[in-house]
């Protein structure tokens, strides 16, 4: 209905394979980005920052990462929480050891460190496949959490074993710590997520992305046409862990401000991110965002409606919330097993064909 594609034709390959080939999509994305970068910072307050926007951005980053591994390369991982912890602790150690280091650099370095750890734990994927791999990645989840709990060096021997983000500034404005204004942390995360979402898109549309997808769709055929499985799988683990590490770093330094391994990065987080990409859509960048939005916003929404709106006792609401989320997840998987991204694709297709049904 909204699409006017007539006359929107491509005269070069670079136009044909651009990120948003349809003009309206492009304009919509520009609009959303402009809104997110130029308008939201003026509207944001603590509540929106901490309850809605930062969690969304942090989880979107993690979902991007896991989607690269699971959605694009077909390797199911339940070690996300552990890798986020690596990112968080790497970030903490870097912040403490190099207080002068720019926060962007810190987060990216934390991601790189996580990428290395990811490669290490990705090695079994060469032999183990499917659910066996999924469960095997739990080994990394449990081991990493145990490690960060056990080795005091990671938490700088603090009495409690908690790590807390010291204040760091960017352009003279605090970006971590309690004094950081909401718009600053928001913009920081938004910038990272935006940039790396585009990078993720670039990766998946090119040679590397295709080698991942080839492995995902049919690994033997992929190898026989010249995709080295070792390189493809490990690069997927590396890139995926890089993103997850950054999200862990963001979660620790900007969103929560402090962290403790089992509370903040437990196995529940691994499942949560996996859910995000499945509800959102495997193998879809957009899906990562939709999934993250769905699963971070839905509970807040349900809670506000049930407790705030209907005035039900919080415990009842909490149980009901769990029940509803479970039911909604099942409902979505039944209705559209390929996730919200597919739902959007179908909707878009219908809008493009409007008023025709097909």
């Amino acid at each position, binding site marked *: 209905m909204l699409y006017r594609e007539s006359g929107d034709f491509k005269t070069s390959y670079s136009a044909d394979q651009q990120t948003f080939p349809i003009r309206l999509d492009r304009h919509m994305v520009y609009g959303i980005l402009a809104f997110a970068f130029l308008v939201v910072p003026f509207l944001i307050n603590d509540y929106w920052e901490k309850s809605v926007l930062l969690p969304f951005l942090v989880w979107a980053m993690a979902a991007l990462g896991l989607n690269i591994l699971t959605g694009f390369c077909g390797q199911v991982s339940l070690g996300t929480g552990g890798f986020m912890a690596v990112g968080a602790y790497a970030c903490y150690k870097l912040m403490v050891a190099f207080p002068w280091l720019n926060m962007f650099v810190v987060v990216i370095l934390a991601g790189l460190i996580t990428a290395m750890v990811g490669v290490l734990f990705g090695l079994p994927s060469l*032999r183990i496949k499917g*659910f066996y791999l999924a469960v*095997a990645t739990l080994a990394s989840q*449990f081991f990493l959490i145990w490690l960060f709990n056990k080795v005091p060096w990671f938490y700088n021997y603090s009495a409690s074993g908690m790590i807390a983000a010291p204040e760091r500034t960017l352009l003279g404005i605090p970006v971590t710590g309690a004094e950081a204004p909401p718009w600053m942390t928001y913009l920081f995360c938004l910038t990272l997520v935006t940039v790396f979402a585009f990078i993720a898109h670039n990766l998946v549309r090119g040679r590397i992305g295709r080698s991942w997808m080839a492995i995902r769709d049919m690994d033997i055929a992929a190898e026989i046409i010249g995709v080295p499985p070792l390189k493809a799988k490990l690069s997927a683990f590396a890139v995926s862990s890089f993103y997850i590490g950054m999200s862990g770093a963001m979660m620790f330094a900007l969103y929560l401000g402090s962290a403790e391994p089992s509370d903040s990065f437990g196995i529940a987080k691994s499942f949560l991110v996996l859910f995000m990409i499945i*509800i959102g859509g495997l193998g879809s960048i957009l899906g990562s965002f939709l999934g993250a939005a769905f699963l971070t916003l839905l509970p807040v929404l349900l809670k506000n409606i049930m407790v705030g709106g209907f005035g039900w006792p919080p415990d009842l609401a909490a149980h009901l919330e769990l029940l509803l989320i479970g039911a909604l997840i099942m409902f979505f998987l039944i209705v559209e097993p390929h996730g919200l991204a597919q739902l959007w694709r179908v909707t878009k297709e219908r809008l493009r064909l409007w008023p025709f049904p097909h």
Partner: protein
Amino acid sequence: MSPELLNVLEVMLNGLLAGVMYSLVALGFVLIYKASGIFNYAQGVMALFAALTLVGFQTGQIPFAHVINTMFGTHVETWGPGVPTFLAIILTIGVMVLFAYLVERVVLKHMVNQAPIILFMTTIGLAYFMEGFGDLMWGADIKTMDVGLPSGASTWFETTTASWAAEGSNYPGMYVDMLDVSAAGIAILLVVVLTLFSQYTKTGRALRAVADDHQAALTVGISLRTIWVIVWSIAGCVALVAGIMWGAKSGVQFSLSLIALKALPVLILGGFTSIPGAIVGGLIIGVGEKLFEYSIGGMLGGATENWFAYGLALFFLMFRPQGLFGERIIERV
């Protein structure tokens, strides 16, 4: 025998018994996976739900009392003294069968031919749903599970083993929990019953056929959907057994659902499709993690069991990627 050796034996014995407890949970996973290819993450929550239901019947709780009270401002809690344990178990089995039926009707029916990971995720959704549902139905407080199983240290075993130790070593004897022993007994019974069931009943044979070939099963004359209901019912009963055992250890509470995490390494080690695998896997994991904690864990600062179980399973997988007893994955071009 030296006390050290006896200590090792004691650790191993307890490891074996702990392993049986893991197997009890893993068994439910295997049953469903074998028949339908669904990796049912909700198995742990099913155990919790079954245990909650059992206790609820035993103590005569009114389901959804809290909801009713909130909505109508009443103060109902129980409807009476509860029913005898045996009857409660029967009733609970009934509930689990009903549950299996509903799961098939409402959820699985729509999920035929979906990718395994989607099915897996659906069961996690189911797990969330049941956690919420169980809490709403029976309340979130911790309940005591008592079905009259023996519990506590076996003094007979303690004194017997104490005599094995060298004179004067002041060895107290080996510890073994009667609950664990009875769990092992029940597990054996369960496996025997399941084996007999699958060997000597028509339904059982159909189940085996389904595991081998979905098409073939249809020719046996039982619809796939019926088979799914049966399998989920059986898995529900297995979950009830696991719930009773684990509930007796820790009380019936939310954490009971987390036993699924203890069963996962057992599963990958034994193979998703093998009932003997679930048993042997459980034993290996149980002994392995206990021995590791006993011998090396302390040096690493302890609490190694959680990850070591997975590490051990991973180690086995490197040699057999389909698990010890799993069906061999054949790669074809």
